[in-house]
């Protein structure tokens, strides 16, 4: 479903991805690991279409759509979801209002039936429960005054409702305590399905204790330098990234 071929990308004109290949099939969970500055987050942002993240060569195809040709909202409507590393606050716009606008746009584009407000509220409450967020959070401004952990859980809550075709999680584990990490992992695991691909971008192996990936890739200097199964993550945990990149690294 996701085919990335020789992808080159630049951020504000600086080359970050330098020929990346990756194939994600429906039902698979991929983990992208790598040292700081290797391009992990860039990959997630390039795929989602953030401003100033520019594809300079190669291709990323999602279900036949060339992502480079789509606006960010069109990518979302095509089923791409990015759980942000640092979710931004939108004061005064309630979570519920935000979800309604998002779900309306995406479900309409995907030809799915529209949820009336009763259905939406019920589903939203269920999703909150799944990630251990009080339903009161639906009334609050998007991420407004949320703690770091609440923001991350709020992202997963949205993801559960959006039912994406391809879910990208950018360092979702960073800043989470062990309980929150398990909650988030449960949420993500509940989304595992033969219809859906999941890509986890993470620096640490510990998230992978709870969300067991089918494939692990190590990214360094804008390229995937090693791919393997879930054991690769454990090996990295023991040996550090320096083992593969040939540099000293304090993972």
């Amino acid at each position, binding site marked *: 479903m996701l085919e990335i071929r020789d992808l080159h990308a630049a951020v504000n004109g600086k080359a970050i991805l330098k020929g990346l290949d990756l194939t994600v099939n429906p039902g698979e969970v991929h983990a992208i690991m790598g040292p700081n500055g290797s391009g992990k987050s860039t990959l997630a942002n390039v795929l989602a279409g953030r401003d100033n993240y520019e594809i300079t060569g190669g291709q990323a195809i999602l279900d036949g759509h060339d992502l480079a040709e789509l606006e960010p909202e069109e990518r979302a409507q095509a089923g791409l979801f990015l759980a942000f590393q640092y979710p*931004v606050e939108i004061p005064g716009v309630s979570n519920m209002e935000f979800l309604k606008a998002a779900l309306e746009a995406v479900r309409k584009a995907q030809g799915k039936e529209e949820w009336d407000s009763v259905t939406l509220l019920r589903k939203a409450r269920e999703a909150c429960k799944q990630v251990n967020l009080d339903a009161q959070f639906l009334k609050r401004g998007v991420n407004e005054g949320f703690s770091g952990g609440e923001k991350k859980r709020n992202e997963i809550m949205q993801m559960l409702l959006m039912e994406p075709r391809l879910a990208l999680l950018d360092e979702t584990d960073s800043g989470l305590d062990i309980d929150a990490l398990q909650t988030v992992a449960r949420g993500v695991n509940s989304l595992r399905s033969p219809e859906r691909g999941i890509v986890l971008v993470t620096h640490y192996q510990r998230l992978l204790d709870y969300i067991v990936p089918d494939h692990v890739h190590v990214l360094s200097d804008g390229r995937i330098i090693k791919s393997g199964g879930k054991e690769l993550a454990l090996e990295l945990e023991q040996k550090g990234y320096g083992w593969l990149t040939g540099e000293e690294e304090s993972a």
Partner: protein
Amino acid sequence: MSSQAELDKVIRSEYEAGFTTLVESDTLPPGLSEDVIRFISAKKGEPEWLLEWRLEAYRKWREMPEPEWAHLHYPKVDYDAISYYSAPKSMEDRPKSLDEVDPELLDTYKKLGIPLHEQEMLAGVAVDAVFDSVSIGTTFKEKLGEAGVIFCSISEAVQEHPELVRKYLGSVVPKSDNFFAGLNSAVFTDGSFVYIPKGVRCPMELSTYFRINEANTGQFERTLIVADEGSYVSYLEGCTAPQRDENQLHAAVVELVALPGAEIKYSTVQNWYPGDENGKGGIYNFVTKRGVAHDNAKISWTQVETGSAITWKYPSVVLRGDNAVGEFYSVALTRHAQQADTGTKMIHLGKNTKSTIVSKGISAGKSSNAYRGLVRMGPRAENARNFTQCDSLLLGDRCGAHTFPYIESKHPSATVEHEATTSKVSDDQLFLCRQRGIDPEKAISMIVNGFCKEVFKELPMEFAVEAGKLLEVSLEGAVG
């Protein structure tokens, strides 16, 4: 697409209410003189005292300089090029009911989304619609009559309730108060009059829609609201105007009198033609709005301003009595070449008086948006308190926001707090919305609406919805 490009797209939308009604008008030739004032007064069959009042205002106005202190730039208005009276011809004989009203006029309101017929049936909003200078329809009179509430045009009030008009007209905004109020006092043509008797809670929200229609016709409304002791009224005012090439002057005066224990809530949604991208053809809006709150009385101004090329407007409260409360909630949106210099004055005279100011300024395009507020604590204002919050939101990088707070305190126990912030709709916020499938236009409108939420929640329900939509339309047909 970059976010600047998105913004530009949204900002370039065309004014939705830009159309002209083809109604013949009985219009006076341009120019202002004592004879013109006599004509207006005679045309309206006014008593001698009112004519004298107007003439006195005119003589004082001629001596007054036009104010230049505002953060506004516009060519000098030629007051001799303006026509000071215009009434739709079909109104010579006032219609007895809406059925007798020129269908074209009614259609105009329909285009603006103000179907009078439907409004009559809709939940409790009485409409006194002003088309140019003459009222064309007043509804719900009977129900209001039962409660003893007087709600009519000011011309009618002059005839039917001269004692009230004579007592309160100019009591809050004296005729020589300022240049524009002076002009208004001399030539005002119509507007609304409200009187709520002692202890009465007005059974419905009162509403007036204004519309400027004649080319080169200044419109000078005069509104007077008197809430007698212990009474309550909520008054809604909404405006929009058709597209024009010449600038149109508007200089209204609104006076509120809240007698002891009374409460007046005055809400405005203003959507006059702001001019094209270069400001050409927009309305010049110079308004004087002021209320006097006596002991234990409360006056609350809520305004949503999206229109006009030039806005000069400072709804104010004189907290004359002890324990009086004044509030000002404002959203001012400027785009294209619009300029707004708006804010409020809270004049604390009584003890334990309290005022709250929440101002939200949104600037887009190459517009300029200034907040100007005065908080004055008088020598008797023991334990008076003010809280001011002033937030500016910038869309794009070619607009400007300015804050001019003035604080004067003559009493040591008075407390004045002022908070101000300036922020931009960030690329990150926009990207979060777009990543969730929301198009940029809708995203910007959502973010801006969120920014204004504190003010919108002060508006009556139907009006809040309307205001949200208006913002969306302004940012959309305008910003997208």
